[in-house]
């Protein structure tokens, strides 16, 4: 793990260190949104508002129309990147990549600077209006640490979601792509993710963005946001102190935040 990521992002271990992956099979999905509601159930999020990603709605099924009214569906949620840009740009190292797969935002540490929101190539991180902290799918890291599958996966009534060790799921994805005449999405994007899709049509048809293969892809954090954080009291004194301290002890971690146009890292 350490070797794979260098000292570029905070890493951790939940259970046994074996990487796991979620598989989304678009050919099986019926767009019932039981995964969306199951996510809300497990995380005790408010009931409705199903069509937009938010701090309390970590999965959407695209397109944003009623169940049954689209012939094809795609999942939109955190991809749990192998090289998570959100973690790389976080000034307070509130985002951890776990060896088992989950990329998790620590709510106690987050200062709400929004860098991760702009850095995510899939745009799946949202800010909570009340706590002002960034929030997204955790891959049910609490369940994974008990060797259980994410709650959305166990909720799926048509087995369009699957979960398992990365190598096995990767093989399954390839096999399903072959069977359905489709392809695997997520294996190369942004250096690879731990959520794989089996798609048949082009990404755009599913409302899924085309993301290049670059690890830690170039971010889109507005300069004004960075300057705001440097020169105003935004994020608080404690946040600034912590960001400064971490910059001093992990200077390498500044690379992705302040040098977004670099070549492959």
């Amino acid at each position, binding site marked *: 793990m350490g070797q794979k990521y260098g000292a570029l992002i905070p890493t951790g271990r939940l259970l046994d260190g074996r990487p796991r992956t979620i598989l989304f099979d678009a050919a099986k999905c*019926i*767009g*019932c949104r*039981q995964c969306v*509601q*199951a996510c*809300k*159930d497990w995380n*005790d999020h*408010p*009931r*409705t*508002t*199903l*069509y937009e990603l938010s701090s309390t709605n970590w999965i959407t099924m695209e397109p*944003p129309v*009623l*169940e*049954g*009214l689209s*012939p094809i569906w795609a999942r939109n949620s955190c991809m749990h990147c192998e090289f998570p840009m959100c973690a790389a740009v976080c000034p307070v190292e509130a985002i951890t990549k776990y060896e088992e797969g989950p990329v998790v935002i620590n709510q106690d540490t987050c200062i709400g600077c929004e860098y991760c929101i702009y850095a995510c190539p899939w745009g799946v991180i949202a800010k909570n209006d009340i706590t002002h902290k960034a929030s997204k799918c955790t891959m049910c890291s609490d369940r994974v640490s008990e060797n259980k599958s994410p709650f959305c996966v166990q*909720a799926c*009534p*048509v087995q369009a979601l699957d979960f398992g060790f990365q190598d096995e799921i990767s093989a399954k994805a390839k096999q399903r792509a072959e069977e359905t005449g489709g392809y695997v999405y997520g294996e190369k994007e942004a250096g690879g993710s731990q959520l794989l899709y089996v798609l048949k049509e082009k990404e755009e048809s599913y409302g899924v963005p085309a993301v290049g293969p670059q690890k830690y892809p170039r971010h889109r954090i507005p300069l004004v946001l960075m300057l705001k954080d440097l020169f105003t009291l935004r994020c608080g004194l404690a946040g600034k102190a912590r960001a400064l301290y971490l910059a001093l002890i992990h200077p390498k971690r500044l690379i992705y935040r302040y040098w977004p146009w670099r070549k492959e890292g």
Partner: protein
Amino acid sequence: MANSADIFPRERKTRLPGGYMGRILRVDLTTGSMRDENLPEEPLLRKFIGGQALASYILLRELPLDAKPYGRENKVVMMTGPITGTGFTPGGTKVTAVYLSPLTNHTLGRGAASGFWAVTLKAAGYDGVIIEGAASNPTYLFINEGKPELRDAGRVWGKGALETEDLLRAEVGLKDARVMCIGPAGENLVHAAMLCNDYNHNAAHSGGAVFGSKKLKAIVVHGTARPSLHDRERLIEAGLRWRNTLVVRHEAEKRTAGHAVDLGGAPNFNFRSTVIEESHIEGFDKNRVTLRPCFQCQRLCPWDVELKAGKHSGTLGHFNAGSEWLDTFYNLGVRGNDALYLAQRINDLGIECSHFSCGVGVAFEAWEKGLLNAEKTGGLKFEWGNVEVIDRLLDMAARREGYWGNLFAEGPVEVAEAIGGDAPKWIVHTKKGTPALHDWRPHFGQMIREIVASGGMKPQGGGSVNPPPDLKYREKWGPLDRDNPAGWPWSNALSEQYRQFCGLIGGCWFAQMHMKPDGIKSIVDSFNATTGWNFDIDQALEAGHRSAMLQSIFGTQRGWIAEHDWKEVGPRFLEPLPDGKHKGFTIAKWLPDMVYEYHRLMGRHEKTGRPFMDTLKKLGLEEFEEWAQLD
């Protein structure tokens, strides 16, 4: 408000059990006033729980004895239950509406719907709604995050259910608002008009007509609340066990003739043949079928279809389980994708399909036998399988257009009487309502269920050959003989009780797989984990029994007697089967004995249908003693 102030406490003094939102919305459409009622305290709440039982109890306490179905004084009481919308169980989707039925004028009308609406009503902050009075102009009720308001529905009046749903969702500007509405049938007081929700779902048995009489087009709900849960961990465990008992439906089943296949025959040509041929499913193999399950239920009953063959290719259809809408048009001689096309039309117009099919079936038979001709039908050819004519008749019935539109809106009994001659012998009905449209005739359990219905119009139960595995500790009988009536009345009574229980806790009885081990116990455990109560299976059955008893007391108060159950049945429903494996079979030769036995077993007098005092005491319903059978 009559006589019910003691039901709803001004302030709750006992702890609100898990699963409930704690409030019922009372809406007076006449004055436009609205207020919140607190849920009853224990022990009342524990006794009636929710769903049909609590709703019926409120109606029994509040509805004047001289109320008329379409009068301002009639009320619609809609209740969910504690497991509706917890998210951790399958089948937690139910809302049940009760009212005085305009089909019979004297029994409890009851419609129940699944889908997403009931869950969203709770998310909007309410366990139920009581609708009183009548608006002077078309109105809809919008409840958003605990805030109800009445709005003008002029723009959607006259529209079909699907369009109404879309338009109202757009009007409130909330994509995930959920809509329960009526189609033109409800507006025009077609006696069997339905409540329609979430595209695929209908609560049948006249609720739509009562909504129409109150000029209430729809109830739109939206919200983010969720009920508190007594023991989340235990609920997740019980919910998973429940899920494991489900018999999951598959796409392939949606390309068959539906439930008719399981029952051994479809009704054809007004119940005169049961044969299922290839033509019944013509085109089904080419259609695009998508399963569209209810909220968090893995049984996958509802489904959508895009017709890919036939004259109406391209039509989208939205259906639920059951497939009575398919048998509805098989019964009129329609086959294949044309039947699906018409089924979508009838659901959108909001007519209970059996009401239409049993009425039109009699008229078509009269045409075939020469009692009707083009002169009498305004030039319309009442021929079997004439899709254009049936399509036209659907519109006429839903809007009460012309002589025939009015008759079909009234019901099959009125149609037959108007035709005269032998036509009254060709009717299928029970107490002027119509059975869910399948050919139930070869089956004792289902026939006794359809006929008795605990003095109401919508039956539950049906029985089983063996007792459910979870009840084997107390039920020492079975297997029953399909050709011998012995044991079937009790089998039906028992299944009525556990199905009632499933409904009144807010669960769907389609998700209650009673013949699987753990099929009943996992539901009772889910209920206990949600609420914090500690019901055993006997108490659960007793709660179901109590609900059925409230249904019959409502009828008793308004003139229903048990004798009506077997005397007011359309003759065709009791004719020997015309063909097929069970040719010649009829339940008729065991009537009225089976009806008598059923009522005795439920604790009622076999002829009057009144409950015995002992039964009322056992069920804690002593307050209704004036309606008891005393000798």
